[in-house]
């Protein structure tokens, strides 16, 4: 084994770089090859900065600046000067993007500030373009970039929008109930002695013409004559209590915002009795307004109201709590409080912000080097089954804004696990790039679990926002120029190694190959993961990176980092299975089905032995059809025809015209649908039956044969009855 190979294998196995064959990567400012193009994000048009709109619904109150600019340009950049307007506005957009780094400000203020900086002196038509576009923008809001504060601001903004709407609705509803309940009391007052006193009557008339009335006399007349029914003292006191209870609820969203799970939990416990009181008052008020409150039935029920907890739908009428915690700062007590909230289904929306998902335990402290503390809250919450869970890096928040809104609207607990991309060990990489790389490398996959979206995992769980969710690693086309200045194009996967390579703490697991070229003894990461190596490896894994001059570098990866990469892929596979991708159960069933089908085909293909199949097979469907037809015909066959000798009425055709019942209401009667039938044929004469048949508008009375042979004039009656037989 030559020295070079020895050094590579030794590095792979131990992580040490023994000779000059391999160089450390520290200080070389290397970055993964696929990120070479993203050195300056401000020149790119992408999701950020975002605008947190002051108007809009919960699922539409966040937009990207570029999306808003595109919409505005579609409206104003038309006709001859369209190109000029577009150019000006896009220049302004780029300037806003640069200025928004780390500083948030309202869009309108930022717009005017940048517009003044760009200056009309350089381009006289600039103000015209910008003014027209600003008018077309329509809405305003805070412009925020992807930074450490983004997760909090983003979730809080959507929460605030939803809560404001909810508060308005509940306030309106409570005002309506108070108004209706007060009306009952007011009506009672008007009927009472006090309400009919001369003073009250005078006050109700108003100022003009008050002297024209003798209120004393009017009061006397009213007290003697008008309706005096008043409500009982018990009901009056109940109604007054209802009004007080309804007015006791303060739905001020700010009072429901917390930065600690245990504080939120304590507040919930303290405020719960008030909540029950208001929910009880709403329920009682509804009954009172409908006039349906019965003390003997309802008192017992409402005395015990809320003792066993309120239903989720009732709780959902009230404010949701927002708890924003940082995963790094959570001690054991906080974690226990979080678990309590998650498992009890309280109406709390928990944002767990993670700034570092590659927390490294220092060597020699018994750790494994990598302690990926990261996604465990979200994964644990999935197991609870009724918690809304969303995991996403900050870079993908805009694309997940609908899901954040869903989580906030969900009647129960929601957990948002967000990776901000700001851990302080990534040099000058912008947080957006780090967060996006975490999603791309499967280190922080995006998933959402909506417990009430359907009955099964297929409808509840979604991985769709991930890049290339079907693949182990997302693959991209990578073009570069080789030593002979030829263009080379290859497909490169973005793996966990690339994400770890952004972090300076992991530079020790990488080593640059000075010869700057790849040979047969190296293989790309996905291939290295596919082979199981025992003993000394024939090939060592490598990845492509570029230096600050954009020169391609080959970098070797040690076994420790590879082990972690394998673990990451394993975790991704589990999530994929939950999302129905490469699901092992489904694949097994599919394989069995395929096998069974192949066997069946094979059996059919074997030459038939014994008797030939019956030729009748072809005619079978016809027979079956005929049979079915007969069955159907039988189904609509009427009940047995009534005998022509018996008197009867075709009741379903009766038009309730009263002709027959007026002739004899003992003989003819109406059924539960107000349609006539013969109730008692012996309750009248045959003559009445015939008369009824003749007068029936729709001719549905059939008199049958006479039952009493002694009735006079029978011969004539039978003749008259003939048309109705």
């Amino acid at each position, binding site marked *: 084994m030559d020295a070079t190979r020895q050094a590579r294998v030794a590095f792979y196995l131990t992580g040490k770089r023994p000779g000059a064959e391999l160089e450390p990567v520290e200080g070389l400012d290397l970055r993964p090859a696929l990120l070479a193009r993203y050195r300056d994000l401000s020149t790119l048009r992408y999701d950020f900065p975002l605008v947190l709109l002051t108007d809009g619904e919960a699922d539409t109150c966040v937009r990207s600046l570029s999306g808003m600019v595109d919409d505005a340009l579609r409206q104003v950049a038309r006709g001859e000067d369209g190109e000029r307007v577009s150019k000006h506005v896009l220049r302004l957009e780029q300037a806003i993007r640069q200025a928004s780094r780390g500083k948030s400000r309202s869009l309108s203020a930022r717009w005017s500030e940048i517009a003044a900086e760009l200056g009309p002196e350089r381009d006289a038509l600039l103000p015209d373009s910008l003014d027209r576009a600003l008018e077309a923008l329509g809405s305003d809001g805070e412009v925020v970039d992807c930074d450490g504060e983004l997760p909090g601001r983003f979730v809080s903004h959507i929460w605030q929008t939803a809560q404001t709407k909810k508060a308005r609705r509940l306030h309106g509803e409570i005002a309506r109930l108070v108004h209706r309940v007060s009306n009952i009391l007011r009506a009672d007052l008007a009927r009472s002695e006090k309400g009919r006193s001369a003073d009250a009557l005078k006050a109700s008339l108003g100022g003009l013409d008050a002297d024209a009335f003798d209120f004393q006399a009017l009061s006397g007349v009213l007290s003697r004559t008008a309706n005096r029914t008043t409500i009982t003292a018990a009901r009056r006191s109940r109604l007054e209590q209802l009004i007080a209870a309804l007015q006791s609820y303060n739905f001020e969203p700010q009072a429901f915002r917390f930065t600690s799970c245990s504080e939120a939990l304590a507040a919930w416990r303290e405020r719960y009795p008030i909540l029950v009181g208001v929910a009880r008052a*709403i329920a009682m008020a509804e009954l009172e307004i409908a006039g349906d409150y019965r003390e003997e039935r309802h008192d017992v029920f409402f005395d015990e109201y809320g003792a066993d907890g309120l239903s989720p739908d009732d709780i959902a009428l009230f404010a949701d709590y927002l708890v924003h915690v940082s995963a790094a700062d959570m001690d054991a007590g906080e974690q226990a409080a979080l678990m309590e909230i998650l498992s009890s289904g309280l109406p709390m929306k928990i944002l767990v912000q993670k700034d570092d998902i590659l927390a490294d335990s220092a060597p020699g402290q018994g750790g494994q080097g990598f302690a990926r503390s990261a996604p465990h809250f979200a994964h644990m919450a999935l197991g609870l089954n009724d918690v809304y869970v969303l995991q996403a890096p900050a870079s993908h928040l805009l694309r997940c804004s609908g899901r954040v809104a869903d989580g906030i609207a969900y009647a129960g607990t929601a957990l948002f696990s967000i990776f901000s991309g700001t851990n302080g060990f990534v040099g000058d990489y912008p947080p957006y790039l780090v967060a996006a790389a975490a999603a791309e490398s499967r280190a922080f996959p995006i998933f959402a679990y909506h417990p009430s979206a359907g009955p099964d995992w297929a409808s509840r769980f979604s991985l769709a926002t991930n890049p290339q969710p079907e693949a182990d690693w997302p693959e991209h086309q990578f073009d570069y120029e080789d030593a002979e200045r030829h263009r080379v194009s290859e497909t490169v996967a973005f793996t966990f190694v690339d994400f770890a390579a952004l972090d300076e703490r992991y530079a020790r697991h990488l080593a640059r190959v000075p010869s700057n070229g790849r040979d047969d003894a190296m293989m790309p990461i996905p291939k290295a993961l596919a082979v199981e190596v025992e003993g000394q490896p024939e090939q060592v894994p490598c990845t492509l990176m570029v230096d600050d001059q954009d020169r391609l570098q080959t970098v070797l990866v040690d076994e420790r980092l590879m082990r972690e990469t394998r673990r990451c892929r394993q975790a991704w596979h589990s999530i994929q299975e939950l999302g129905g991708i490469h699901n092992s159960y489904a694949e097994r069933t599919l394989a069995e089905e395929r096998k069974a089908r192949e066997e069946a085909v094979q059996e059919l293909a074997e030459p038939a032995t014994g008797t030939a199949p019956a030729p009748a097979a072809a005619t079978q469907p016809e027979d079956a059809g005929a049979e079915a037809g007969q069955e159907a015909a039988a189904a609509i066959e009427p009940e047995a025809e009534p005998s022509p000798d018996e008197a009867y009425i075709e009741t379903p055709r009766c*038009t309730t*015209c*009263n002709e027959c019942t007026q002739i004899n209401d003992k003989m003819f009667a109406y059924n539960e649908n*107000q349609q006539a039938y013969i109730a008692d044929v012996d309750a009248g004469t045959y003559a009445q039956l015939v008369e009824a048949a003749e007068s029936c508008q729709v001719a549905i009375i059939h008199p049958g044969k006479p039952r009493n042979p002694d009735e006079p004039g029978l011969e004539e009656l039978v003749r008259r009855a003939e048309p109705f037989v």
Partner: protein
Amino acid sequence: MATAASHCLLRLYEERHELEDYQSGVPRWCTGCGDNAILAAVQRLCRDEQLRPEKTVFISGIGCSSRFPHYMKTYGFHGIHGRALPVAEGVRMARKDLHVFVNTGDGDCCSIGAAHWVHAIRYNMNMTVFLHDNQIYGLTKMQASPTSPRGLRSNTTPRGSFLEAMQPLTVTLGVQNVSFVAQAVDWIPELLYDIVSAAYRHRGFSFIRIVQRCPEWLPSLFEPWLHDPERVRLLHHEDGIQVSPALARVYRNQEHHNPVDIDRAREIASCIDPIPVGILYRNPQVPCYEDLRATDHLRTTEFIKNGLEAEFDKFTVWPSA
């Protein structure tokens, strides 16, 4: 917004209403009058849907048919001639919790109330409207109405009426925002009930023209239709009325008609003989006026007083000091 508890409790102690609970008095209509069939169908609907009598209101104008509210043990408003619809619109606007029904006749709706009728269709407020069309003024003893057939001799047209009869269905289907139009005949009670039921369930202005016999003044007008099932064409569809096998055997003249097809509905509406029976048109997407104008504003005494004061102030002449 009701809590789960109040919602359940409201339903829990609801009393079961039988058909008799909706009956009030003995109808004063002539024996054999088609109004009886309509009353029976509507009372059956109330029982089957378990409408709370105190949450149900029947509003009518003037005429034989407009006596209808007297015979329902619910709230009622026997209004003035031709104005049943404006009253119903007011009730609907103020009390969205009520089930609103309107009974109007061919004179009440198509003559003196025609302007209100056209605009009520356009407003599309959620109510069920029964046009009792017997093609004659019966209460005032036989005068021609707008729907009387040409040539009908009556007290006002002794030499026979000169004009073609108005077709209420084509008029209704020609108005913007129309959302439900059906036709029934009083002598097929099963279909009458099915159509009334479908109309009640439609959210919007459900208009049913019910062709109805008048045994007193036009006793033989519908005889030919009554005795020849071929002269009645049943409109059936999976999303409309489904004809029972027993009925299908008697009435074989049938058409499969999709109630969303307004063009075909207009063609069917123009047909006088055979008489089409069923749902001609239904579009649940048309917005209701009361929803468009809904406001969260509570009508407190103060609010009403201020509104009135503001209106009065516009016309007040202030004495110059």
